């Protein structure tokens, strides 16, 4: 029996209000183009790539972990497919599988390091971030002699991973939707999802309650490695080339999207709907500014202020959800 009262207490409401606010704002200042098919494609495409990474990063955050290594996972996987299927001309499927396997492998290593060493994942993945960036640069130069490699992929690979539908919408959009559904199912309807929430709430109690926390942790890191590798791989196919660059933008952007989406930085709380809304909000702000007459110089300022506003709003709604008591009486314990 969902009433308005109980809806308002849904933690996602904060993120929803935020997204609607920026959407209305940019619809007004961005003119008709912003909401046209082409305009929507512009922020949806950005959202789809960020969103594919934000989802597993969000799950990790709910489970109490961070993954900074996605920042170098993307160039590492693009370079992998470009070197294998571009430089060495092997079939594209080999490159795709190699890139995705690399993602799984890096995630596996991060996960094992986190559970074995008990070092905070922030530090562990900071180390893998640097190590992987160094490896990508060094190996690319050794193998291909260059830091930028071209990749020609056949029509099938293009269609599946790197094409525009209607000339505008990247196919990654559909991948994103698929992953949203999968992750949403996992978090809300599967036992695994309950384990993730419990681990973020209290890792020791979760282990004591019989949750195989080690396996869950490794699985989560592998999924974030896989998704980052997927984005890198599909970018290489879409743009017919790959470059080495030690990227920091996806690191913070994915965290920002997830936090705007109402996930608690310290773990134990969050929702897939929220992450999707946070990703959309971030993408709208990031791209919307180009549709307005504002000077793009102020983009960072707007993102910073937005982040703070979003987090404050989420906090309010989370507190509401926490103090929710089914009796409408004013006294707590009546």
């Amino acid at each position, binding site marked *: 029996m969902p009433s308005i009262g109980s809806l308002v207490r849904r933690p996602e409401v904060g993120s929803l209000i935020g997204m609607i606010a920026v959407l209305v704002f940019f619809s007004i200042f961005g*003119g008709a*183009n912003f909401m*046209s*098919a*082409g*305009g929507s*494609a*512009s922020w949806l*495409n*950005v959202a789809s790539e960020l969103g594919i990474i934000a989802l597993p990063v969000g799950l990790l955050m709910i489970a109490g972990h961070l993954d900074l290594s996605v920042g170098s996972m*993307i*160039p590492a996987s693009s370079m992998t497919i470009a070197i294998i299927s571009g430089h060495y001309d092997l079939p594209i499927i080999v490159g795709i599988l190699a890139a995705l396997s690399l993602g799984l492998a890096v995630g596996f290593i991060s996960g094992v390091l986190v559970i074995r060493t008990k070092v905070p994942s922030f530090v562990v993945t900071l180390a893998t971030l*640097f190590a992987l*960036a*160094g490896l990508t*640069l060094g190996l*690319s130069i050794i193998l291909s002699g*260059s*830091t*930028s490699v*071209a*990749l020609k992929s056949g029509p099938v690979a293009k269609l599946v991973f790197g094409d525009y539908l209607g*000339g*505008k919408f990247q196919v990654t959009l559909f991948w994103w939707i698929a992953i949203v559904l999968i992750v949403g199912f996992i978090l809300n309807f599967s036992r695994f999802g309950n384990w993730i929430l419990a681990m973020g709430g209290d890792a020791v109690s979760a282990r004591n309650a019989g949750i195989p926390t080690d396996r869950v942790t490794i699985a989560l890191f592998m999924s974030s490695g896989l998704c980052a590798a997927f984005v890198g791989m599909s*970018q290489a196919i*879409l*743009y*017919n*080339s790959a*470059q*080495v*660059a*030690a*990227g*920091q*933008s*996806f690191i913070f952007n994915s965290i920002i999207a997830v936090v705007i989406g109402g996930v608690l930085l310290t773990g134990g709380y969050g929702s897939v709907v929220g992450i999707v809304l946070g990703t959309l909000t971030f993408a709208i702000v*990031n*791209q919307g500014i*180009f*549709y307005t*007459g504002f*000077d*793009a*110089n102020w*983009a*960072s300022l707007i993102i910073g202020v937005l982040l703070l506003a979003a987090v404050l709003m989420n906090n309010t709604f989370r507190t509401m959800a926490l103090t929710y008591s089914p009796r409408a009486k004013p006294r707590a314990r009546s």
Partner: protein
Amino acid sequence: AMADGAKIFVIGGKADDPFWSKVKKGADDAGKVAELTGGSVTWLGPQNYDNLGPDAAKLIRTALSQKPSAIVGPDWVPEAMDDAFKEVVAAGVPLIIYNSGGMDAAKRLGAMNYVGNEEYAAGLGGGEYFGSHGAKNVLCVNTLPGSTNTEDRCKGIADAIAKSGGKSTQLPLPSSSFGNPTAVAEAIKAAVLKDNTLDGLITISAGDANSAANAISQANVGDKVKLASFDMDETGLQRIKDGTQMFSIDQQPYLQGYLAVSLLNGFVNYGLDLPTKPVLTGPGIVDAANVEATLAGAAAGAR
């Protein structure tokens, strides 16, 4: 108010990049003319260079979705960006390629014209200047290794020096040094101390040249290692004037933005088209001979 004038979209570099801020200033200044006839100029730049090709392709599509009158864009990573440019042309929107790609790219894509020079050509120009002034071993300091444009600059240097019988190596700095002038300076100093046959040194940006100047004076090799830089700022020009820097490679970024926008504004409003193709803005060399005039422009933020 913006209904009838030319709505011109300019795709360019990062907003806080000193080089691109000059291009933007040129575009904005030309935009003032466009505004007089009810037009507008909108600048679209990526937030960083991590993902240059894909990000720029997205910006082109972002521009196209706003029903522009004309688009200006650099062809940094043709593999990644050409499809997007072709969509622009297919949609009947006038296009000028600028800054990188060259006339080849403009022809291939069906663009009206090309304004600017190429990173590689600029590198060649610098390499030739070094060669003709007797440098045999030049270090190219790359603080953004892995980015196509900076790699091209260093490659141009190396290829040109090789022709005059010298050699050039690249010094790639890790991302943990980026934006930290001291880390850059000390790394350069180390490289200079390690290889005492070095006689030339060039940095990929004007800011790095400030670090390199400190490195050279610390290592006490100022009379042996000649300093040069891609692009320039007031501090660098001052060094050229004082004789502690040999030259800067100038591609007149202000003109790239200014000319490209002006050309398109004229075309959209009045059907004007220039027979000169391509319109080259560089590479020019700023050295002791022409530094005074350049300084004046730099003070105004145009050079």
